[in-house]
C-alpha cells in the first residue's frame, strides 16, 4: 500500500497549436505532486492558461496524459481494472467552475443526484431520496427546492451547492474543485469555502484549483504554484504565500490588490507578463522574459526543483 492518497510523477499533457496542430505545446509540463492520506486541502494556483484545469482533469481520470503516471492510493489511474475504476469514480469526485455548465440545461438537476446515489451507492429510490435529503441539508438546501427543476431556475450559488451535494453523495475521499467560487459573488464565496473546511474535518481531501491566492490562503494546507504548464513552487501554504521563494510567486503576491497595500501596489515597479505561447515553448526557465533576477543559466537550462526550507522551488536562485 502506498503512503500517498494521490501522486503525480512527471505528468505531461500536450496540445496541438498552429496550422492543424503541427506545434505541440505542453499544457502540463512534467508536473509532480503528492498528497498524503491525512485529509488536507491542496491548492493548485496559477493564472488562466497555466494548465491548472488540464491538471485537474488529469487527476480526475478524464484526460489521459502522454507522459508520466498518476497514482491514486498507489494504483495507476489510467490502467485501473473494471472494479477498481468504479471505486475510483466513487471516491474521487469533482466540482466545476461554471455552475450553469455543470448540469445539462435540458435536464432536471435532481437526475444527477439520483443517478449518483443509484450508480455509486447501489441505492433504491427510497433509500436514495433519504440520503439525498441528508446531503442537501448539509449544504443548506431541501429536496423540495430542487426536484423537477432545470438548472436555469437556480442562482449560481445555489447550483454550486447542489454540485457539492452531488459530489458528496458518493461519499468521496477526494474532491477536485476547479475554480468553484470564481463565478459566485464575493459575499457568498465564503459560505462555499467554509463548507470545504468543514468537509476536511469529515475526512475528505481537496484539490482546490484557483487563480485567487487570498481564498487559497484561507483554506489550504499546501499549495503548488503553476506557470505556463510547470509547477514552479510547492510547499506549505503559509510558507509559500507569506515568504514566496520563486520570483513569479513574488510577483503574484505583490500584484494581489488588498486593503492596506495601496502605496506599494501603485508605486512599486513591475513588469507585465510576456507572450504566452513563446514561454510555453521555452527551453530554459519559462519565466525568463519577465524575471527581475534572471541569469545566463536560466536561458539555457531548465531549473529543477530545489529545496528551500520547507518549500520546493524551480529556480536557479536556490541551486
Amino acid at each position: 500500500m502506498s503512503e500517498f492518497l494521490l501522486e503525480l510523477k512527471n505528468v505531461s499533457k500536450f496540445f496541438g497549436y498552429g496550422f492543424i496542430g503541427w506545434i505541440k505545446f505542453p499544457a502540463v509540463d512534467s508536473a509532480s505532486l503528492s498528497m498524503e492520506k491525512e485529509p488536507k486541502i491542496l491548492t493548485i494556483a496559477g493564472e488562466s492558461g497555466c494548465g491548472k484545469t488540464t491538471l485537474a482533469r488529469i487527476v480526475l481520470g478524464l484526460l489521459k496524459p502522454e507522459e508520466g503516471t498518476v497514482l491514486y492510493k498507489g494504483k495507476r489511474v489510467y490502467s485501473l481494472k473494471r472494479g477498481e475504476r468504479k471505486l475510483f469514480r466513487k471516491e474521487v469526485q469533482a466540482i466545476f467552475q461554471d455552475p450553469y455548465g455543470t448540469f445539462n440545461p435540458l435536464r432536471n438537476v435532481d437526475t444527477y443526484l439520483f443517478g449518483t446515489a443509484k450508480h455509486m451507492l447501489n441505492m433504491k429510490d427510497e433509500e436514495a431520496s433519504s440520503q439525498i435529503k441528508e446531503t442537501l441539508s448539509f449544504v443548506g438546501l431541501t429536496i423540495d427546492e430542487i426536484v423537477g427543476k432545470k438548472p436555469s431556475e437556480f442562482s449560481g450559488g445555489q447550483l454550486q451547492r447542489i454540485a457539492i451535494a452531488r459530489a458528496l453523495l458518493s461519499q468521496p475521499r477526494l474532491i477536485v474543485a476547479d475554480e468553484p467560487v470564481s463565478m459566485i459573488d464575493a459575499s457568498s464565496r465564503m459560505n462555499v469555502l467554509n463548507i470545504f473546511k468543514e468537509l476536511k474535518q469529515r475526512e475528505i481531501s481537496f484539490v482546490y484549483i484557483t487563480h485567487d491566492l487570498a481564498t487559497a490562503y484561507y483554506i489550504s494546507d499546501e499549495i503548488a504554484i503553476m506557470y505556463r504548464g510547470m509547477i514552479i513552487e510547492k510547499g506549505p501554504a503559509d510558507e509559500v504565500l507569506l515568504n514566496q521563494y520563486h520570483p513569479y510567486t513574488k510577483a503574484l503576491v505583490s500584484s494581489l490588490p488588498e486593503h492596506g497595500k495601496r502605496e506599494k501596489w501603485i508605486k512599486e515597479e513591475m513588469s507585465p507578463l510576456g507572450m504566452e505561447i513563446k514561454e510555453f515553448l521555452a527551453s530554459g526557465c519559462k519565466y525568463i522574459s519577465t524575471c527581475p533576477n534572471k541569469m545566463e543559466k536560466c536561458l539555457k537550462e531548465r531549473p529543477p526543483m530545489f529545496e528551500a526550507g520547507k518549500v520546493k522551488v524551480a529556480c536557479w536562485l536556490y541551486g
Partner: protein
Amino acid sequence: MKITKSLAITIGVLAAHLIFAYVLPYFAPYDPRRWATVPRDMPPSTAFLFGTTTVGQDLFWLSSYALRNSITLGILTASVSILIAFLLGATAGFVKNPALHNILTLCIDSFSLIPGLPALIVLTYSWRKYLSPILIALILSIFGWAWPSRSVRSLILSLRERPFTHTALLSGYSMIEIFFKEYLPYIIKWLAVSFLGLLTWAIGMETTIAVFGLSTLEEATIGSILYWALQYQAILRGIWWWPIIPILLLTTLIVTIYQLSNMIGELLGAR
C-alpha cells in the same frame, strides 16, 4: 402571439400543398401524365383551373402528381441522408480509436467537399437509362449526408467537452447512457432542422437536373414539367402558365418549409 400567428399561416400553406399533392391525385378523372387527353394550350379557366399543355395534359392534375413526386423524392432523400449522417457522424464523434476516427472524419470531409451539382450531372447522365424517382433520391443522398454528418460529429465532440458530460460521468452514467439521455435531445433538434433543409435542397436539385433533361422525364415531377415546357418553348409561344404555375408551386413550398425550419430552430434554440 406573433409567432403563433405566422406559425398558423405557415402550417396552413404547407397543409394546402400537402393536400394538393397527396389527396388530390386520388380524384384525378384520368391519368394526367398521358398526352392528348384534353384540348391543347388552353389558358387557365373554370374548365381547366391551371390551363393545359401543348401536349394536351391538364396542368392542374399534372401539377398535383408532380408535387407529390417531388415532395416524396425530397422526403426520401432527406431521410436516407439524415440516417447516414447520424450513424456516421455519431460514430465519428464517439470512437476512441484515433485511426478509425481520422478515417471517418476524412471520409465525411471528402464527401462534404464534393461539388454537388457537377457530380450529380455526371452520375445521372451515366445512369440515365435506369433512372427512377427512388434511384434519384438515393443519388441525391450521396451528396446530402456529408454536411449534416459533419455537424453531428462536431456537435458530439463539443458536447463531450462540456462540463455536464463530466458531471454525468462522475455520477456514474455510462457513455451510452450519456449519449441517449444528455446528447440526443441536442442532436435531434439539429437533425430536425437539417431534415427540412435537405428536403428543400433535394426538391430544388431534382428540379435543376430535370431542367437539364437528366431526370425521369416520363414521370411527372416539378422538374420534368419545366423540362417539357422549355422543350416546347412555352414562354415564347405565350403559354406562360405551363412553366409559371409549377414554379409558383415550388417557390411557395420551399419558402414555407424554410419558414417552418426557421421557426423550429428558434423554438428549440430558445430553450
